[in-house]
């Protein structure tokens, strides 16, 4: 709002003095010369005119003043403009600047709550570059400050665990008069739009690529059944069961792709509500006991009692994380071994992801953005399968990635399980770490990737996936008792 400035009153007497001086000049000079007459006349006229114009502006301002006063009076009753802006869901910022080449002179003079969250600001003001480093955005701000240009810029937040896209409008604000310049910046979240675009492309590419193989085999068998295997009873049964398996696989693939898309869609929206990890572990183990018995694999669980230590999360999604990790472990666990599930509370995120002492290679597949209180609940699922060699670890959570040399044979997987796990954990702002000790393989010439991985029970080799979910607060001392599942153990014994 422009400040009310009183008119320059001293001009009125000045004009009067000039006019008066002119009159005196006229009267005082005895021998009346034409040029003195003209000069005094001009003085009088100028004085009168300036008197009149000043008076007029003064009167105008006076008549306008009551309106200003009313506006000012209204404000204290309702919320101020700043309060209104603070409550807005879209980030809003006001930036001031002094000179074009003085970067340290650009200050954030106002930022609402959303802007403070977006740029991780600790206070409402401060140096502009300490919050915004994006060169395009800074350029747009400069143009608004010094070039009086309003425009919109699209920028993305890179480097974070979740990709986000923003559209920013920058426009100049009226100058205050002290040489300071102001610019307004309003941002809008465009992540949804961009995500939908990208996901449609991804989904189509994945679906068409991955469905082609089972589809080809299906149509091949159909041709055979129509052709020379028409009357062969035995072959027909065999083919039909293969076809059923392929159709199953296609169904699972589509389900997984759809759920991956759904999760990716909401990845930038943090979940609300409470989820109980020990309970999820219990549910998963209960549902997988029969499968484990069939395979001759035991499941052992070490976890605190369910119902006491919730994390912020979506219950179904956390269940899916535990389910996928356990499924995965069961897939690679050899007969007679134990799959260990552990739930640990109050864990700090391992900042050092360097491989720990000994043989285990360790890699962070997903690193959460830094938060103020970093305490996590960890679910660790460990199997004693052949292990994964270090060079394969970085690509593990990639969709459709298979570790070289691992036979997919009877292991029915879509290759999406870990990708789903990763995206769910990313949505929960958590982390995922893989550790593994792989079987020693005699190194050949160091160039050839070794394709043979022995599939025997080896106590020394193992793979563990640890999923980290942020806790609301530190729980402190928690009694943890071992809770083995009899069913699974019996079959192993």
């Amino acid at each position, binding site marked *: 709002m422009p400040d009310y400035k009183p008119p320059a009153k001293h001009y009125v007497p000045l004009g009067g003095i000039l006019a008066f001086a002119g009159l005196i000049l006229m009267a005082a000079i005895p021998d009346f010369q034409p040029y003195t007459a003209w000069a005094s006349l001009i003085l009088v006229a100028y004085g009168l005119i300036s008197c009149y114009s000043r008076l007029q502006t003064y009167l105008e301002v006076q008549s306008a003043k009551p309106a200003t006063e009313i506006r000012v009076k209204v404000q204290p009753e309702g919320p101020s403009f700043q309060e209104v802006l603070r409550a807005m869901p879209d980030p809003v910022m006001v930036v001031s600047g002094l000179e074009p080449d003085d970067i*340290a002179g650009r200050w954030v003079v106002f930022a609402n709550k959303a802007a403070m969250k977006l740029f991780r600001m600790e206070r409402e003001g401060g140096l502009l570059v*300490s919050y915004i*480093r994006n*060169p395009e955005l800074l350029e747009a701000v400069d143009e608004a400050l010094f070039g009086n240009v309003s425009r919109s810029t699209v920028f993305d937040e890179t480097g*974070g665990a979740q990709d986000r896209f923003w559209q920013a409008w920058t426009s100049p604000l009226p100058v205050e008069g002290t040489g300071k310049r102001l610019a307004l910046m309003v941002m809008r979240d465009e992540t949804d739009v961009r995500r939908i675009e990208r996901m449609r492309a991804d989904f189509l590419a994945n679906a068409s690529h991955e469905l082609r193989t089972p589809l080809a085999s299906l149509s091949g068998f159909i041709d055979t059944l129509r052709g020379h295997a028409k009357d062969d009873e035995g072959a027909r049964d065999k083919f039909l069961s293969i076809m059923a398996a392929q159709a199953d696989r296609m169904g699972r693939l589509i389900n997984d792709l759809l759920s991956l898309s759904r999760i990716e869609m909401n990845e930038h929206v943090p979940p609300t509500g409470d989820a109980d990890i020990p309970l999820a572990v219990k549910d998963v183990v209960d549902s997988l006991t029969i499968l484990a018995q069939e395979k001759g694999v035991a499941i052992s669980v070490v976890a605190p009692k369910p119902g006491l230590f919730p994390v912020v999360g979506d219950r179904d999604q956390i269940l899916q994380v535990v389910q996928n990790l356990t499924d995965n472990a069961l897939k690679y666990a050899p007969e007679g071994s134990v799959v260990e599930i552990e739930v640990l509370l109050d864990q700090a995120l391992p900042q*050092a992801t360097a491989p720990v002492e000994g043989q285990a290679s360790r890699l962070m597949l997903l690193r959460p953005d830094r938060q103020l209180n970093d305490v996590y609940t960890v679910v660790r699922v460990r199997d004693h399968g052949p292990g994964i060699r270090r*060079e394969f670890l*970085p690509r593990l959570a990639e969709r459709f990635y298979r570790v070289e040399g691992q036979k997919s044979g009877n292991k029915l997987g879509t290759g999406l399980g870990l990708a789903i796990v990763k995206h769910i954990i990313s949505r929960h702002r958590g982390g995922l770490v893989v550790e593994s000790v792989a079987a020693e393989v005699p190194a050949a010439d160091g160039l050839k*990737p070794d394709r043979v991985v022995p599939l025997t029970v080896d106590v020394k080799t193992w793979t563990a996936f640890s999923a980290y979910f942020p806790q609301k607060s530190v729980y402190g001392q928690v009694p943890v008792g071992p809770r083995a599942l009899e069913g699974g153990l019996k079959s192993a014994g």
Partner: protein
Amino acid sequence: MNPHTVKTYGEELDQLSAEVILMGGLAEAQVADAVEAVARRDVALAQSVIQRDQRLDELEKDIERKAIRLIALRQPMASDLRKTVSAMKIATSLERTGDLAKNIAKRSLVISESEPMSGLTRSIERMGKLVSSRLRDVLDAYKGSKLDIAQAVWSSDTEVDEHYNAMFRELLTYMMGDPRTISACTHVLFMAKNLERIGDHATNMAEHIHYEVTGEDYMNERPKLTTMEP
């Protein structure tokens, strides 16, 4: 903040670190854009990355000039001196980072002429994202003088190395499978190496930040991976 007797002295110091942050933002964007140019086979973006590198060079010179001027005229002591010196050193690291990003963009122009290799470019994208996040963390640490973030960046360098080694293997398999891809794969290998070196520069900067804040050098050995045979 310790107030200085002469106000403009403090302003000059602030200006120096503000310019380093600005330069950091530019370097960050260069790396991100170069990687995106590779992933999307975007020739125009690659060319703009190559052109923008000049701006980084100019900024580095400017920061150096200002730092030398500050040392000559104000004779900074203790933390102010460290601030000045580390601004200069970090600017040099950022300039190198920009050069490496420019090199990635140049190579992306070459490989955009050959057949698309979506598997490989996806690996580059993943590695690029990791390196970007380290750059972002280290600049956050610089602007807030946060030692713990700098420490975390410093100790997680092996992650980038792991990715580089994985890519090296992947590329070997590709090249052995189809010798016609060797020329393109070599360019991708150099891109991965460049990204790995950008990661090293992030580690360097973390060390400079540690020096700026504490006045002490890093005593520990750098975490290193030695899976690769020499």
